[in-house]
């Protein structure tokens, strides 16, 4: 869907809404004797905001790392369905691919602890999001004039639209390392969007933010989802945010999937309440989550 004056769709998937986009199939991940994930299965539907929640150390980030190829699970598989512009479907098994090949399938992500190229400018970071779409080789790149120049100009149009969407105009030529934390989080979202993702993985996009910044970020994520139609998988601790913006919620606890459903179903699930009540951790986020759950239940 194209909105406002934007000419480029940020959604890189041609699947119709409601079809299964990503299938996580009986995934288990171990680090030596530590079981990080045990037999996890769920499906991410095209067009959804799919939240993964759970107490600290439940395996949420490990799950995301398996999807983006940074970890390779010992058992199970993760499959991504893609459709070409003419409608032909391809299923790729992500668990067999290195991270850069998964990125080329347009699976984009952000990290819990910002992983931007801090010495590069905002613009250079965003242009790196276009890396997979630029086809010219090293020789052309050295000549600069000709194909390299034409491609960079074409891709700059989309990058400018992302800058506009996320209101990063003022920071274009600033080195990312010099920017405020909240802005860096936004740049990271922008860099992922420049891939034109079929699937956008966000690892705690609002971690460490104040209420106002969280609201802004939630707004941007909703814009990306509703205006651009990008499917989002989101890890978040803030229950209010999760219940507000997600279509579907998967709950992990100690590496196991204990619930999977709509926000309302999950809220009412005794196993979920147990997981949060049962943990006597001092973690503020968990306490907050607990309060929300009790208040709503």
């Amino acid at each position: 869907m194209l909105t406002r004056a934007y000419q480029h769709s940020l959604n890189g998937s041609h699947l119709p809404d409601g079809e299964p986009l990503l299938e996580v199939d009986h995934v288990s991940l171990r680090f030596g004797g530590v079981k990080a994930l045990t037999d996890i299965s769920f499906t991410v539907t095209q067009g959804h905001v799919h939240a993964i929640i759970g107490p600290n150390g439940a395996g949420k980030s490990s799950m995301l790392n398996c999807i983006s190829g940074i970890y390779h699970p010992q058992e199970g598989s993760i499959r991504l369905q893609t459709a070409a512009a003419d409608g032909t479907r391809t299923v790729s098994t992500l668990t067999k691919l290195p991270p850069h090949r998964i990125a080329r399938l347009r699976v984009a992500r952000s990290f819990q602890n910002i992983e931007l190229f801090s010495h590069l400018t905002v613009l250079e970071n965003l242009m790196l999001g276009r890396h997979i779409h630029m086809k010219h080789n090293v020789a052309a790149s050295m000549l600069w004039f000709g194909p390299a120049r034409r491609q960079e100009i074409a891709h700059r149009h989309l990058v400018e639209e992302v800058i506009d969407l996320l209101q990063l105009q003022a920071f274009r030529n600033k080195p990312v390392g010099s920017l405020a934390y909240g802005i860096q989080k936004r740049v990271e979202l922008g860099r992922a969007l420049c891939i034109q993702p079929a699937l956008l993985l966000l690892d705690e996009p609002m971690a460490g933010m104040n209420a106002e910044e969280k609201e802004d970020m939630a707004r941007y994520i909703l814009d990306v989802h509703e205006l651009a139609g990008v499917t989002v998988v989101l890890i978040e601790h803030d229950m209010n945010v999760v219940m507000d913006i997600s279509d579907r919620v998967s709950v992990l606890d100690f590496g196991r999937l204990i619930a999977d459903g709509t926000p309302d179903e999950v809220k009412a699930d005794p196993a979920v309440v147990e997981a949060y009540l049962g943990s006597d951790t001092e973690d503020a986020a968990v306490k907050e989550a607990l309060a929300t759950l009790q208040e709503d239940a």
Partner: protein
Amino acid sequence: MSTFLNLLVYGLADGAILALAALGFVLIYKATSVINFAQGEFLLVGAYMFYTAFVVLGLPLVAAVLVGVVVATLIGVLVERFILRPMIGEDPISIIMVTIGLSMLLKALVQMFYGTSPKSQPAILPRSSVEFLGATVPLNRLLVILIAAVVLTAFTIFFRRSRHGIAMRAVADDQQAAMTMGISVRRIFALAWVLAAVSALIAGVLLADISAVDQNLAGFGLMVFPVVILGGLDSVPGTIVGGLIIGLLTQFVSGYQDPGLATVVPYVVLVLILLVRPYGLFGETRIERV
């Protein structure tokens, strides 16, 4: 005044070649965190490859340069693929030992095929002199400065502006994030070694033309260490400034003091800079808390 101008030109020419050699070293260090002790031998091998194409095979100049570039590219790819890639994740000391071994291997190969006596190669750059502000300066040194300046500028623009240059900087900055941008880190590693080998080839050919095609080329290459320590191990502009400073310093000491002292001076600078400013003039200051 004429001595000063002469020394200045000689110093700048040496410095420009050093900067080219050091550029390759910095590229490899930045992108792959490998300290390449074989950089001097890359100069040596580059010069001998060009000699083979130009003199032994009798190819025209342009073709000989192209053959040199192709062979340098191949050497870069092969070294990365078969020597450095299996070492990924190993102890840095082991990797340093491997590159020292590589330097010995390359030197021995050159001796095996070409012997130890200097080879005669017809001059490529004109041997005439020009009058310049009352001094007689050799034209070939001026041309060396010019060629090196053009190549260094081209490389710098490539890193700052082009897609592959920015991808290299991205990998140097954060490998994990680079992978999730769809950048193949292995390709970037290979590219770093190729560019290092090609810049060393250019430096080697220029150096051989103003000196001689012999084993001493590798010794000159050893001077990249003072240069990169002075400029900063991970700084491309640092290689240019460091190269010029070391080149000028050795020539001025050699001209006004003593040629013997001039061979020591770069290493005195190396020790001093390590004592005073261990990250070099332009290097990134990394503070690690243990």
